């Protein structure tokens, strides 16, 4: 019992980085109400991020004395990964949206960004269905505020309402699915649920498990914009500013995939794979989800003449690629190459290139002229050579050309998909790999079209926009990550591989009360 109590008491210490972020957010919220200002609160916000990052890096929590089936949080390498990605992503998003923010709303925006980052970190740490749900809501609710903040024009309001309603709906689905899982296993602790699955206590109720899993997939599918839960993305991205759009493209996907990995038990304190063993239909469901998500995403992106809508559909397609890793993971004999580590790598690559693309649009836009049509970018190579080169790099990375992050990511996912050994499954996943390859070629069509518009055409109406200092910093970070992950990915590969492996194998559960 002592171990259990000690474990419960450790929850606050395990959540220290999030506490730093949320405390900073309180300071910014309160202070911003009395003294609006972009520079000062932006700086405080950055300090908060740095503080949280320092806590993450220099205050690792020792899990060896904790009981997984009791613990509310589980700060294993996956959590470590999620926190670092969230915080670094938060800093880049802050810099990217800086110029767009009006002076008076900056503090609120920054504070929301801090809370949302904390939410992502908590998703990575959550070892309880309830904590997981709260963490996901901690991401959603600040997002509503951020979408509503500008209140400019009808499209922005429509986007906010659309996102709000669909997000609430998906949360309800998720909660409903969680309730089934609780009903079947009698516990909300994720490790305990997996253990119950592993002990086959619930094999009598496969239908309920399947229904619960289905609702969970639907609820999380909304966050990762998996087809058919992707409808909101293009409208919302188009209607809102570049900063919030970049955020929506990146943050919910990180949270969604990490939550998937946790809930499916691919890594974490519980026995690996147990949920899958109960519902064999689950990998098939993910297979189908991956195939239709990337295909629909890519095919619909071909028809877009608005860059932001195109990026929304491209985000859908990239989610499809990452779903490859989820679908194939149960069948991998060697889980360190491909599968979950590949997803974690691709999330970073995807974040760098997508946030970077939005940052370019942001740099080109001015208060009176929002750049988002394809034709706005005509001849960009002549008027803004630096920005054109950056955007071309991100687009080449999305195509998956070598020496960019996108290639290193796709390569690892493909290795995973082709690595299955069982004959029946390898047949199935070879087809999935072929579908993915065809999709990569379709994707190249519309990314290349944009590159062609920038480089092979002359400017119609030259764009006035210039990147400010913060925009340049954000872009430099995205370019840096895209190139670094593409040219010499070894360090990041080690990091994601470490995060993606099941850190605490089954025998740790022996010490359970």
């Amino acid at each position: 019992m002592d171990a259990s109590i000690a474990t419960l008491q450790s929850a606050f210490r395990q959540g220290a980085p999030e506490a730093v972020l949320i405390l900073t957010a309180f300071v910014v919220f309160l202070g911003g109400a009395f003294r609006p200002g972009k520079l000062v609160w932006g700086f405080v916000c950055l300090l908060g991020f740095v503080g949280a990052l320092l806590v993450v890096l220099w205050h690792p929590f020792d899990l060896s004395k904790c009981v997984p089936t009791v613990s509310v949080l589980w700060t294993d390498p996956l959590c470590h990964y999620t926190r670092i990605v969230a915080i670094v992503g938060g800093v880049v998003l802050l810099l990217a949206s800086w110029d767009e923010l009006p002076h008076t709303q900056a503090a609120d925006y920054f504070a929301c960004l801090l809370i949302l980052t904390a939410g992502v970190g908590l998703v990575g740490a959550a070892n309880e269905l309830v904590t997981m749900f709260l963490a996901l809501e901690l991401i959603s609710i600040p997002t509503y505020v951020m979408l509503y903040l500008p209140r400019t024009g009808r499209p922005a309001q429509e986007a906010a309402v659309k996102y709000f309603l669909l997000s609430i709906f998906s949360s309800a689905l998720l909660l409903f699915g969680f309730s089934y899982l609780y009903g079947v296993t009698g516990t909300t602790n994720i490790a305990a649920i997996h253990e119950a699955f592993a002990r086959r206590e619930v094999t009598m109720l496969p239908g309920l498990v399947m229904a619960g899993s289905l609702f969970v997939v639907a609820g999380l599918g909304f966050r990762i914009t998996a087809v058919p839960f992707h409808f909101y993305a293009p409208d919302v991205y188009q209607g809102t500013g570049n900063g919030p759009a970049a955020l929506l493209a990146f943050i919910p996907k990180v949270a969604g995939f990490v939550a998937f990995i946790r809930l499916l038990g691919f890594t974490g304190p519980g026995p690996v794979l147990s949920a899958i063993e109960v519902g064999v239909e689950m990998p098939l469901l993910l297979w189908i989800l991956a195939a239709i998500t990337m295909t629909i995403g890519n095919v619909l992106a071909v028809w877009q003449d608005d860059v932001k809508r195109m990026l929304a559909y491209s985000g859908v397609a990239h989610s499809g690629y990452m779903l490859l890793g989820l679908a194939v993971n149960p069948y991998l004999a060697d889980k360190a190459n491909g599968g979950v580590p590949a997803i974690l790598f691709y999330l970073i690559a995807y974040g760098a290139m997508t946030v970077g693309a939005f940052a370019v649009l942001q740099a080109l836009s001015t208060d009176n002229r929002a750049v988002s049509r394809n034709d706005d970018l005509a001849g960009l190579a002549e008027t803004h050579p630096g920005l054109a080169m950056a955007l071309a790099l991100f687009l080449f990375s999305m195509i998956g050309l070598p020496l960019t992050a996108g290639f290193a990511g796709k390569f690892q996912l493909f290795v995973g998909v082709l690595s299955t050994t069982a004959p029946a499954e390898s047949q199935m996943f070879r087809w999935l790999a072929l579908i993915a390859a065809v999709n990569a070629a379709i994707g190249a069509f519309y990314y290349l079209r944009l590159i062609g518009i920038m480089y092979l055409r002359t400017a119609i109406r030259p764009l006035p926009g210039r990147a400010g200092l913060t925009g340049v910093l954000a872009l430099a970070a995205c370019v840096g990550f895209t190139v670094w992950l593409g040219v010499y990915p070894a360090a990041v590969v080690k990091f994601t591989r470490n995060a993606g492996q099941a850190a605490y194998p089954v025998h740790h559960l022996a010490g359970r009360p």
Partner: protein
Amino acid sequence: MTPQMLILATLIVPLVGAAIAAVSRSTKAARGIALVAVLVNLALTAWLVLPVIPELIARAPVPTDAEPLSFSPLHTLKFDLLPFASEPGKPSPALQFYVGLDGLNVWLVLLTSFLMVPAVLVSWTAIEDRGAEFYAWLLALAMPMLGVFYAFDSILFYVFFELTLVPLYFMIGIWGGPMRRDAARKFFLFTLAGGVIALLGLIGITIAVRNRTGELTFAIPRLIELVQQHLRAGDPTTMAYWKQAQWLVFLALTAGFAVKVPLFPVHTWLPLAHVEAPTAGSVLLAGVLLKLGTYGFLRIAIPLCPDAALAVGAPLLCTLACIGIVYGALCAFAQQDVKKLVAYSSVSHMGFCVLGLFALNSAGINGGLLQMVNHGLSTGGLFLLVGMLYERYHTRMIPDYSGMAARLKVLSVFMVFICLSSVGMPGLNGFVGEMLILAGAWSVQAPGVSGAWLASVVCVGIFLGGWYLFTMLKRVFFGPLHEPHHDHHAPPVADLNARELCALVPIAIACIVLGLWPQPIIDSARRDVNTVVKICDGARDRAAVVKGE
């Protein structure tokens, strides 16, 4: 400088040149920088290659049974790029930067650096607009082209293979003809689509080997060695596994390489890209980039999947190559545009290469390898000459010209010379390659392929090649003088100047030297060609055993 450092230097010098050219202020400065960079690169390549050739010739002609049956590159350099997880205690496998030289790539490396010089010279006055950018992309193209040939890691090969797309996309798209955007897009997308499927094949063979041997490697020589070990062991259950794996991998690789060659049904991007590309782009596209496809077959597809290459590769690709030879030649004959004629002649001539390689015997593979170098020289030369003609009159339509030999004497001499080399006149380079391919096609031994038929198609192809090229010569350069309409106030059109001669003369000399003395190429590649042949013979024996049962 060690050869390894020279290999790195030849990859880095063009990139450094590209970076300097990109930031230079004027076209003049950029082209000067480009010329210096390609000359330095050629010097470095010669310094690298020339001492290696005697080393290559000195090797034993056939690997002994004690040695692993695989390529054994010299002067290799490797370091890890993307490490993979391994079981504790075992060495960590990785995607490597693994480069080296052997008989198959040494001449293609030299050809690449060699053709960069005329590519710069021919752009000298043709490119005025955005010159700094142009020379930057041109130089940037050299790095991946050389890299593909150097690469001995399958994924590194793919990396360079795909990277060639970007510079050429911009070269065609920005400085091309009226339909440049379509041409650039089609070129990029066709090659990329094939390439991604080839990537699946490259990953697939690694995984197939890993599943059987427990060893994860992307190094081409090691992969071939492991596959051969298993195939030679000849356990029937494993054979079924390897047969299926080889089929899938071979088809995936073929998807990528056939587009690049290009073979018959997927060749449609080539004429468009060639016609629209600026002359330098056409020269490098025909001279080097098409070889990436045939080189891929020779380096990766055939040695890694010999049984599939025999069972499916020989009938399928030989048939497609034959169709390509005749179809390309007939299309070339029908063209009014000289550049399009040369482009279709490439389809026809690359068909010879593929046919030679998939004869899967010593003569055929030697011929295919020689023809790669020959085609690079002669078609590169043809595109240079067409570009020079176009620069003078701004038309490429055959009916616009007549009797140009009277006006442009030196140009005509070169044109006739290069055409002769292209159709394979004895004494010039094309002859040796074509004869070897013919010999290879005659003696082909593969199920579903008839040597006599292949040889007759080759003969018809050679004949048609002469027909369309000489018809073009007759209509453009001979007969009564009729110059295309051009600005009559301008000074009369002059013959080749010193710069253009500098671009053409080395190619002409190379054509003669290789025509009279092709032995260094054959000798230096002997061991590697014999390795491939031995691998193919093994596949033939296995097929015979299966048939016998």
